[in-house]
């Protein structure tokens, strides 16, 4: 009987590899920067292991794609706290995994045990929306909003969130960011998780014993209490914004920064320290009346929609995903920047006998099992499945390396691709191009915006438009 194990990339990889090596699994390719996601054991012939982003692992184990998984307690808790009847069970803490998820706020947002807000709603931002909802309930917040993020939570307070959830090794690191810790939400201890059904019916004793034999040599205590959080109450202090003509602009972090820098340069807009070697998220600019922050492009549409920002530079793919989730969102595309071109495509494995989405629909007819669609674009994928009438389907959210999910862990991918070569090299094929995406300026016009602010926004878009035209001519 084959046993399938999901193993983490990233922060837990080195310690997990050491543990499994001592346990005699002999997984040769399980190392940093490994090219292969599928791992074979030289000693355990029934073992099929695969590398995932840590966040994917509890989901993969819960839906039964994998029998066992190793990941941080934070991602397991993020799942269990929202889905208490999830099929995931924590079997063991493995004795490694550093740091914790903390709740933090800005010093100016907290006075004693009072959280000072300028509106009725407390805004919570972070990569763990389910834990954020639990935190809000734990604090008995009278009214709250949750901003799920792809990252860069520390950029948000105090202007865009009162409480953020932040991964750090200790509270001193929170302090060093100029933030104030409200306490620990959950430890990042590595744990061995299992699918309930697999535990019930499959013989995994060899694997479990091999890990367990190593654990005797390390301290594997249970984690500290979840939600060890300072008690706070909300105090609303209505204040008018310091400058309601100020335009709040979001610029992307990550690999888009160099492209954006070139366009800004061509437009004659001077921005200091962007991209920043020190992680500065509030660069200063030559633009009069602009306040700039650097955040994840995936988060921008929502942040413009909820009024935290007026303008942002992101990809049309993320804007589209946002608009599928919130069709009446006030966010729209203001300017196509015509770089970073990718296609958003539906993909299946080569051996699936279809070449179009309508053929896939026909193939799906009468099939009992749910169609598993793996994607980073949850709402685009959801829309695709509905419009193509795929019958019973489930969206499997992923955080990167989605092409490795086919064929064993998903039936369809909704993925972006520049040339299609990665897809081909993984023995996959495109059955539909949903749309093309390039970088764009997005904005959210509001009736309450002052004339000066609207002019400043229009002027910025105009500068970038001219710069693009110049760059194309060159």
């Amino acid at each position, binding site marked *: 009987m084959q046993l399938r194990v999901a193993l983490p990339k990233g922060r837990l990889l080195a310690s997990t590899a050491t543990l499994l090596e001592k346990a005699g699994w002999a997984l040769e390719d399980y190392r940093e920067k490994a090219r292969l996601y599928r791992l074979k054991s030289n000693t355990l012939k029934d073992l099929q292991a695969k590398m995932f982003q840590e966040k994917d692992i509890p989901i993969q184990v819960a839906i039964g794609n994998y029998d066992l998984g190793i990941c941080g307690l934070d991602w397991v808790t993020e799942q269990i706290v929202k889905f208490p009847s999830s099929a995931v069970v924590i079997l063991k803490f493995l004795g490694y995994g550093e740091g914790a998820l903390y709740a933090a706020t800005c010093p100016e947002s907290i006075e004693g045990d009072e959280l000072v807000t300028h509106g009725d709603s407390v805004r919570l931002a972070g990569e763990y929306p389910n834990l954020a909802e639990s935190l809000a309930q734990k604090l008995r917040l009278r009214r709250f909003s949750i901003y799920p993020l792809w990252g860069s939570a520390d950029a948000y307070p105090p202007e865009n969130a009162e409480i953020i959830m932040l991964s750090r090794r200790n509270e001193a690191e929170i302090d060093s960011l100029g933030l104030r810790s409200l306490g620990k939400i959950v430890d990042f201890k590595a744990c061995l998780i299992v699918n309930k059904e697999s535990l019930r019916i499959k013989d995994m004793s060899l694997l479990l014993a091999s890990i367990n034999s190593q654990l005797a040599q390390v301290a594997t205590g249970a984690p500290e209490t979840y939600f060890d959080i300072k008690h706070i109450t909300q105090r609303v202090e209505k204040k008018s914004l310091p400058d309601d003509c100020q335009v709040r602009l979001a610029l992307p972090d990550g690999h888009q920064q160099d492209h954006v820098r070139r366009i800004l340069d061509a437009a004659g807009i001077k921005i200091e320290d962007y991209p920043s070697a020190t992680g500065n998220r509030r660069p200063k600019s030559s633009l009069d009346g602009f306040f700039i922050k650097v955040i994840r492009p995936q988060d921008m549409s929502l942040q413009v929609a909820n009024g935290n920002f007026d303008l942002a530079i992101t990809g049309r793919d993320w804007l589209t995903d946002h608009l599928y989730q919130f069709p009446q969102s006030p966010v729209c595309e203001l300017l196509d920047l015509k770089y970073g071109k990718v296609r958003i495509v539906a993909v299946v494995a080569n051996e699936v006998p279809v070449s179009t989405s309508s053929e896939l629909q026909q193939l799906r007819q009468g099939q*009992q099992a749910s169609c598993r669609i793996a994607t980073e674009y949850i709402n685009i994928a959801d829309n695709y499945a509905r419009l193509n009438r795929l019958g019973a389907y489930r969206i499997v959210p992923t955080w990167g390396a989605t092409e490795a999910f086919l064929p064993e862990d998903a039936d369809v991918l909704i993925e972006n691709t520049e040339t299609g070569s990665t897809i081909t090299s993984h023995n996959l094929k495109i059955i539909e191009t949903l749309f093309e995406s390039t970088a764009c300026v997005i904005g959210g016009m509001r009736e309450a915006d002052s004339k000066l602010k609207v002019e400043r926004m229009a002027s910025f878009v105009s500068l970038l438009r001219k710069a693009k035209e110049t760059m194309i001519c060159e």
Partner: protein
Amino acid sequence: MQIQRCKGCSDFTAEDMLRFRSVEAAFQETSKSYGYSEIRTPTLEYLYLFTSAGTLTPGMLRRVYSFLDWDGWSGERVVLKPDATIPVARLYTERLARKGYPARLSYVTNTFIFEETGTKARERWQCGAELIGVGSSLADAELVSFACDSVKKMNLNNIELKLSHAGLIRGILSSLGLNNNEQDTVFDRILDGKMETLDSMQAGKPQAVEALKLLLGTKGRSSDFLKNMRALFPADIPGIQDALADFIATIELLEAMGLPYQIDFTSGKGFEYYTGFIFRLLAEGVNVGGGGRYDLLVGMMGGQDAPAGGFALYIDRLAALINIDNLYKPVSQRVSLDIEPSAMKEGVEMAGLLREAGWIVSFALQGQKALDCGWEVEVRSSAPRLNVLNCGSGESRVCENPIEMLTIVGCG
């Protein structure tokens, strides 16, 4: 693909609906006689309505169906209503409070709460009443009487009324230094049989712990029982004597109304937002509802403080107890009408006449006679125009017009 309903959700078959409507009708009729007006609150509410301290317990909050609406980009979540009273309190605050007089409101609604196994209901139905804007023993007694009369009207037997007082329990637990949430948790743990929870608190306030043990360990059937308790309770626990006086006053009214009851403090499990008198109703040994006083809820939700009380009856449980035999019209009053194509006009007129006379009439369609009928009538365009068959006796008679036929079936 296998088609199936959502886990934890129920279909209501025709028989289920008969039971449901029977419970609902008994409740509505009683509601009118007590002067309550029916209202309805939406299925979707904002989550924040239920998260303020003192509204829904953390245990309930963990199991609500919360999600982002299609315009939820502000990050604010909505829920499928997990509780019926809180939305009514919201409606009162939003639309009725300014009118300045007590609101007597009743409702029939569904609520949603996640249940892990999927074997119990995730969607539940209840009918209930709220009396908001006034707080007195008479108001409490009115609600108890209303609830009892509703259940009696459903012709259920062995109705039991169990009484408790959240204010009294909270007073004692509060003297042990517990906040509202901790009070809920500790009290529920005690009622789950974990008495050691109390022992761990013994050190600080032994008298308070003794008082609570006394309450939970004894049951009474008269206001005199409470007077005895009052004499035994320590005087230094704030609010406890007032709570007892309030409890005694309500019970004396129930005695005057002739409602038999049992004082049972263990019946107060899951007392959530209740602050004073609480009651639980059992029919044929099944817990079919309950309610009580929640004087702080409206204020905690951001409205002006307003005393309030209410109750809910669990329709699903009551419906299961209803005697179905009383609900069906006897088969003898059902007619299957088989009409020849050339006699359609006469046939449909005949159906109208019979229905006006109180009969249940179904057409035989494509040669299929309607099920469970006492009579089958064939309608033809030529003589004999009507052939009337008594399905019970097998006797068949012919006639020429509807008047004759009504005489044959027994309502002419």
